[in-house]
């Protein structure tokens, strides 16, 4: 054995352990900074992840449609996306199961089949009025009916009075619609 070699053994051993621990440290570090990914068990879950942003909520009643088989899951989520787009377009805000829409001094609150109006939000004596609504197009999902009402009220708030009169279906411009047309 060469002279001096025994004195090198502790040094080499220490250096080797440093490499091992340093290497593990890198692995742990990489593990810690790895971007957390949502658990994805299958295509459906991946689809939900893409189509339903965090914090979004389903409109009450849409699940009933799915149970009835009226609207398959993919379509249902497209419907929700449409509703979200129209809520953003009209400047409405979601409050529980309702969508609150301000048109001038008037506040509308739209929920499944019902719309409520506060004609003048600046008048403390002003009371809420409520009417129900439904689409002239039979079988339209509830979220799409809400989206339709939001679009129509934003453009023509006087439609509320026509719906409240319960005198038939009205087009977005306020003209009466009969199926014979």
């Amino acid at each position, binding site marked *: 054995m060469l002279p001096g070699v025994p004195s090198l053994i502790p040094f080499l051993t220490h250096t080797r352990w440093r490499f091992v621990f340093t290497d593990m440290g890198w692995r742990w570090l990489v593990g810690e900074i790895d971007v957390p990914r949502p658990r994805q068990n299958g295509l459906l879950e991946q689809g939900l992840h893409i189509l339903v942003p965090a914090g979004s909520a389903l409109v009450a009643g849409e699940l009933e449609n799915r149970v009835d088989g*009226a*609207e*398959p899951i993919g*379509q249902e989520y*497209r*419907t929700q996306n*449409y509703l979200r*787009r*129209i809520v953003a*377009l*009209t400047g409405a805000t979601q409050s529980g199961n309702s969508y609150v829409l301000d048109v001038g001094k008037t506040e509308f609150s739209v929920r499944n089949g019902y719309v409520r109006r506060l004609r003048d939000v600046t008048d403390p004596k002003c009371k809420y009025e409520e*009417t*129900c*609504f*439904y*689409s*002239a*197009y*039979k*079988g*339209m*999902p509830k979220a*799409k*009916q809400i*989206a*339709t*009402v939001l*679009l*129509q009220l*934003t*453009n*023509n708030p006087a*439609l509320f009075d*026509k*719906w*409240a*009169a*319960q*005198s*038939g*279906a*009205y*087009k*977005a*411009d306020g003209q009466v*619609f009969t199926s014979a*047309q």
Partner: protein
Amino acid sequence: MTAKIQTFSSHGDTTLLEYDPATADMDEVNRVIAEYEAKTGAQPFDMATGERIKKITSEQREVLMVHPIAGG
């Protein structure tokens, strides 16, 4: 770039028309839409602004035909 005219339906979203706005005959597009409105009462809304439109132009890329609503 294509433009689409869609409507809500019970079976999902139905594309009524898809065309290239740069080359399409917009009079023909409006004629088809007028026929659809006469049959269903649906009227066109610009999905970029949320506004109802009387006549579709080559500016609109996505139009939604909105069906009538009844009170009850």
